[in-house]
């Protein structure tokens, strides 16, 4: 079988012997000759943001952002009410295709065995092969995996990254459906049974599952749990209804072999190969479907530091791919995907980050203003609530907050629907994570995106 290889430099699919790209994992270089100009533009935009926040009233900035957010949320709401809410599960296929699950593993001895066990528990009428591609592990997990029955273990001597490991596995399998599973992801028993029927057309390139957080243990993970329900649950289902999915989530997704043959394998020089392949599919008219009843649980970062590093990788990959596929942005040739989904999901990250930056500067200015008398003379200024009464009233709050309330109400509906999709009943324990999602998370993500923007355009090398 002539497995085609995707050449990231030229963007062409070339025939090859199926071997992985020799370059190993490296950050894709932007081939734009005007890279320094991009850095200058980026810095100019940041400088403009600072000037704007210092000169234009925050009310106006907040109002503009609120109106844009209201439009985006109402768009999702219209898509949902127009039919995305329906559970149109396709009928089971006449013949269940064979599936190969490829699990790339690099020093994942603490989770890989649970992942393999979960894959072995999958209930599926067709044949399921499990291939673990060890990507040069040094923690002894490869030796231990040799003793596990029912899997095909491949070992790469040199660590070349997840995409290279997946490509290695893909080029050595022959089943029509290929599942890519992270080594810390645990699909539910009926995941394949529910997802495979969605490959019901000739150009269905991928079916994505509902990725949920596995057993959250602290507030950082609980916050991500709510985030995943909203993003991979509600938003994915809504966007999928217009064929607008822009990523095939890394933890687990199913692909058609035919798609790889036509479009090539994963881009090994891309930070987010799952995003890149999805955009490639969209460009070439392959559809990506979402099966929200097919669930896979995955481990998520347990600390803000790890979460920051993960999101920097995601956002830098997003910026990289946004530039690579910038011709699709606002291009009517790509329908709702080009006109709505891509600008909102990739472009809005930038503007949300700018808005968060403005908000942070505004908070800092207000905090500085509030603290200044105390810094000037703490005894005279007194301690609010102790030596100094606090005067607050309903009318002290900015009127434009009411516009934000509208967006909040629609968002609350999305959260409600997300809980429903995750088959969770909102309880007291969800109050704090949902509250954090509303107040803290946007600030955190906005700052992460800003950091990613600076790192990407300064050409900083990526570290896993």
């Amino acid at each position: 079988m002539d497995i085609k290889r995707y050449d990231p430099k030229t963007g062409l699919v070339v025939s090859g012997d199926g071997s992985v790209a020799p370059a190993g994992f490296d950050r894709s270089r932007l081939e734009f000759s005007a890279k320094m100009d991009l850095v200058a533009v980026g810095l100019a935009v940041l400088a403009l943001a600072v000037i704007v926040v210092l000169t234009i009233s925050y009310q106006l900035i907040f109002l503009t952002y609120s109106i844009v957010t209201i439009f985006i949320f109402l768009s999702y709401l219209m898509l949902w009410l127009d039919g995305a809410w329906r559970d149109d599960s396709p009928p089971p296929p006449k013949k269940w295709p064979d599936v190969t699950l490829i699990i790339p593993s690099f020093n994942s001895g603490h989770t890989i065995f649970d992942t393999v066990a979960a894959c072995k528990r999958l209930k599926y009428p067709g044949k399921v092969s499990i291939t673990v591609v060890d990507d040069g592990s040094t923690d002894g997990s490869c030796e231990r995996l040799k003793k596990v029955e029912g899997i095909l273990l491949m070992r790469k001597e040199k660590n070349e990254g997840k995409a290279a490991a997946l490509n290695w596995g893909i080029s050595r399998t022959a089943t029509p459906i290929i599942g890519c599973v992270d080594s810390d992801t645990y699909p539910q028993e009926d995941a394949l049974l529910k997802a495979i029927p969605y490959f019901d057309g000739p150009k269905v390139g991928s079916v994505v599952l509902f990725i949920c957080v596995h057993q959250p243990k602290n507030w950082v993970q609980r916050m991500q749990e709510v985030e995943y329900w909203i993003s991979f649950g509600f938003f994915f289902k809504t966007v999928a209804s217009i064929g607008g999915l822009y990523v095939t989530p890394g933890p687990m997704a199913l692909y058609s072999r035919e798609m790889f043959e036509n479009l090539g394998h994963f881009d090994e020089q891309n930070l987010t190969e799952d995003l890149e392949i999805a955009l490639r599919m969209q460009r070439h008219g392959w559809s990506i479907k979402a099966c929200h009843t097919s669930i896979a649980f995955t481990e998520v970062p347990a600390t803000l530091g790890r979460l920051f590093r993960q999101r920097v990788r995601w956002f830098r990959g997003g910026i990289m791919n946004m530039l690579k596929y910038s011709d699709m942005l606002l291009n009517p040739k790509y329908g709702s995907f080009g006109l709505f989904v891509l600008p909102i999901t990739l472009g809005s990250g930038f503007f949300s980050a700018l808005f968060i930056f403005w908000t942070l500067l505004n908070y800092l200015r207000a905090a500085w203003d509030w603290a200044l008398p105390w810094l000037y003379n703490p005894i005279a200024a007194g301690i609010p609530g102790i030596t100094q009464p606090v005067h607050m009233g309903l009318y002290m709050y900015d009127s434009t907050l009411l516009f934000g309330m509208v967006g909040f109400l629609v968002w609350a509906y999305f959260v409600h629907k997300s809980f429903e999709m995750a088959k969770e009943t909102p309880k007291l324990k969800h109050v704090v994570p949902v509250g954090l999602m509303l107040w803290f998370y946007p600030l955190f993500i906005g700052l992460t995106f800003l950091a990613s923007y600076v790192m990407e355009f300064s050409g900083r090398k990526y570290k896993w």
Partner: protein
Amino acid sequence: MNPFAKAAILTVVVVFFAAILVAQVDAWRTQELRSSIDQVVLQSESNRLMQRMADLIPTQAQKCAFFNSSGELSKVRAYELATRIQDYQRANFFGSDYAELKQTYFISLSDLYLFTMEQNKECPQNRETPLLYFYREQNCPQCRAQDAVLERVAARCGRMRIFAFPTDANYPFLSALAGKMSIKDAPQLVVGETPMPAGLQDDGALVRALNADGASCQ
């Protein structure tokens, strides 16, 4: 209809109704402020009317007894009202007649101050110590610290009333008053008719100055 077109139309409708609600909240806010300012205006006008009526009373003692028996409208925490005007103006989205409200308030407050000074001369037994407080509305952390001191001291002092005026509000009558009191900088306080040194005055210094003027602070 395309869902995005529907969303655009709905956005316009939602923003329109939200704007109506915001305008209503702004109006309620202005009304709340207006009723507080109206109390100051009412007190000023009542004092003037009483003064005219007192001209008909034959003896000084009877006049002072008349003024003392008139009762008093609630003592508005003058400096707090001035801060509230600023805060509400900032919180409002749709423009309102805050400039006019502010001017009405400061005119009435000036009138109250002058009335207090006249009454102190005519009826020393009813004397209230006026405390003039000149502050800057913008970029004055010392002024905000002075606000805090005034709030604490006001709670300790009986026969005292604070009249707070901004030095950067650009009203001719306030400029005249500041000029008469030789105000150099903000914050600056005038106890009775005696200016204190410019700059922040702490609780102790202020209480001593007020007691010296007969304010009976604890």
